[in-house]
């Protein structure tokens, strides 16, 4: 009964490939997020969706495209992967934008 689940847990792929990371939450929250944690453990917001609508889109290359088919899902698709995309990507959700976040376990992406 994991609250925020991400798949896959690990993703190893070559430069230039396209990959997706899926996220689902069963908490009934309205808001979902993607954060990137780099090798120095710095956490940076990438996107936020509220009720399937994009509300925050930070300075992220347009190779990254979030998709929210419904309120419980926020997937992240990455085109033309680059070495610098290697990081841990965390999905999170919250009841509203102003509430504490519930994080998934993270997806460790390694681009070779």
């Amino acid at each position, binding site marked *: 009964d994991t609250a925020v689940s991400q798949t896959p847990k690990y993703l190893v792929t070559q430069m230039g490939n396209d990959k997706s990371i899926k996220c689902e939450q069963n908490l009934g929250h309205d808001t979902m997020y993607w954060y990137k944690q780099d090798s120095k453990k710095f956490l*940076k917001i990438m996107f936020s969706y509220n009720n399937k609508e994009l509300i925050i889109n930070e300075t992220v290359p347009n190779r990254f495209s979030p998709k929210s088919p419904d309120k419980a899902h926020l997937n992240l698709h990455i085109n033309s992967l680059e070495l610098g995309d290697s990081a841990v990507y965390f999905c*999170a959700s919250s009841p509203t934008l102003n509430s504490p*976040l519930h994080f998934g376990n993270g997806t460790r992406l390694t681009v070779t």
Partner: protein
Amino acid sequence: AQRVTQPEKLLSVFKGAPVELKCNYSYSGSPELFWYVQYSRQRLQLLLRHISRESIKGFTADLNKGETSFHLKKPFAQEEDSAMYYCALHPSGNTPLVFGKGTRLSVIA
């Protein structure tokens, strides 16, 4: 612009010693502040928030608006406290949580 500063990347203390993880923020409004913790190979989780004024796992944090600080404290560190700690600021409106760069706490037996 909102900013959260955690000046220490790494903090090592002996078991039983007091711990203070520093956090300073920059925000012109009334902030809402949090501490999140990430244990080894686990997800980030909320540790405490300033409006709750509670103690979780022996940790407390007091918001000091004069010093714009929200330091995390524990009187006696335990080995299981070893983790990454992130201070976070929630500005008002449709603005996401802003995280500090994190401090790795290492409690030595």
